[in-house]
């Protein structure tokens, strides 16, 4: 358990198990439902669809246009039917950041489960009111001349950032780019870094 979990109620496990047991008994919860959830999110360790779409957008200008203009069709190329996504592009003049101040809305189908910090009060409170200070603390200094555009996910629309392709990756293909593209970059709290030079 990390620092964000300081106060887990000691009875929480019993409470979960009691509810789980009753819902199994009533035929509401499938016997394999918990295992399937774990399998879906823990065992499925392939790259996020979000990273794969960004890598393709970086290497294919027509796909980039499609991803920005019609993300549903663009995501269908990765066998994902997801109607609610909007993709917002970082540029030299603009940095995008995604938050949900009212709860913890997050584009699960393209990014997986949200990290704990995304769901905690510190991030949710500060992202809309002092994003520059917040990003600085998180290690991302934004040039004062760049606009910061915060997307507060207050409805069912979900947002994913299309980060800037870093210098030094000109020779890389789509498959080599995918592992560089982190979840944090797709939320907007990090840039994508070029690969570290290989040890010789």
């Amino acid at each position: 358990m990390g620092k964000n979990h300081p106060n887990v109620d000691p009875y929480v496990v019993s409470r979960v198990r009691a509810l789980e047991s009753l819902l199994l008994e009533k035929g509401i919860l499938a016997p394999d439902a918990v295992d399937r959830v774990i399998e879906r999110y823990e065992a499925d360790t392939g790259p996020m669809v979000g990273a794969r779409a960004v890598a393709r957008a970086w290497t294919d200008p027509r796909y980039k246009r499609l991803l920005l203009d019609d993300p549903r069709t663009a995501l269908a190329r990765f066998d994902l039917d997801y109607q609610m996504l909007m993709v917002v592009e970082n540029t030299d003049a603009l940095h995008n950041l995604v938050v949900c101040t009212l709860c913890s809305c997050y584009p699960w189908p393209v990014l997986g489960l949200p990290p704990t910090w995304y769901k905690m009060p510190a991030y949710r409170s500060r992202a809309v009111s002092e994003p520059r200070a917040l990003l600085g603390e998180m290690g991302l200094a934004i040039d004062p001349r760049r606009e910061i555009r915060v997307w507060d996910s207050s409805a069912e629309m979900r947002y994913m950032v299309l980060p800037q392709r870093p210098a030094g990756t000109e020779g890389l293909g789509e498959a080599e780019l995918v592992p560089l593209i982190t979840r944090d970059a797709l939320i907007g709290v990090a840039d994508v870094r070029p690969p570290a030079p290989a040890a010789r």
Partner: protein
Amino acid sequence: MDGVHDLGGMQGFGPVEREENEPVFHAAWEAAVLAIQRAGGARGFFNIDEFRHGIERMAPAHYLRATYYEKWLDGVTRLLLEKGVVGAEELAARLAYFEQRPDAPATEPLTAPLPPRPPANAKWAQDVIRETGAAPRFADGDPVRTRDVHPPGHTRLPRYARGKRGLIHRCHGVHVFPDSHAHGRGEQPQPLYSVRFDARELWGESAEPNQVVHIDLWESYLLPGS
């Protein structure tokens, strides 16, 4: 409701703490809570707006110190009790059972064979767009002003964006209205807009320079601006 869940702009929560090598789940009970939430929603015992409002109704101090899945557990339990899906007495009895047997699996008290499960709708939470043909009142670029309201129930107009001037960025189509849908008052679908606010409008002289916030807001939250 003006509750502690409405965190935008609140101060005093300190720095963001990132967990190094955070696991997908910290413990199996977290995955169980996720599975329970999905089962309850997919079988129609609550909709996504009732679910969110169920969490908002937590005791405020508990909300702020609870982890994510503790909040979900609290909200889902509240809804399943309110909807009569589980009874308070049977839940208390089952809780006592597991408190006395901390290592027992969830299936241990079950004696009869499991009943068949009713059909489920896996897309329950995303099914919100309604092609009603309603014409949006506002066009891209229109100035608007948000209503300065304090509704006692569920709303998706954050407190920090009430009574504020913005510009329509785009219309997302016609969406189910959470403020009614969370309270059994129907879907009342209406146009949903991305509205752009300058940070100075939201935060006054405390605003950082060169910042805007986009918020997705339903048409009835908005008045024509100037």
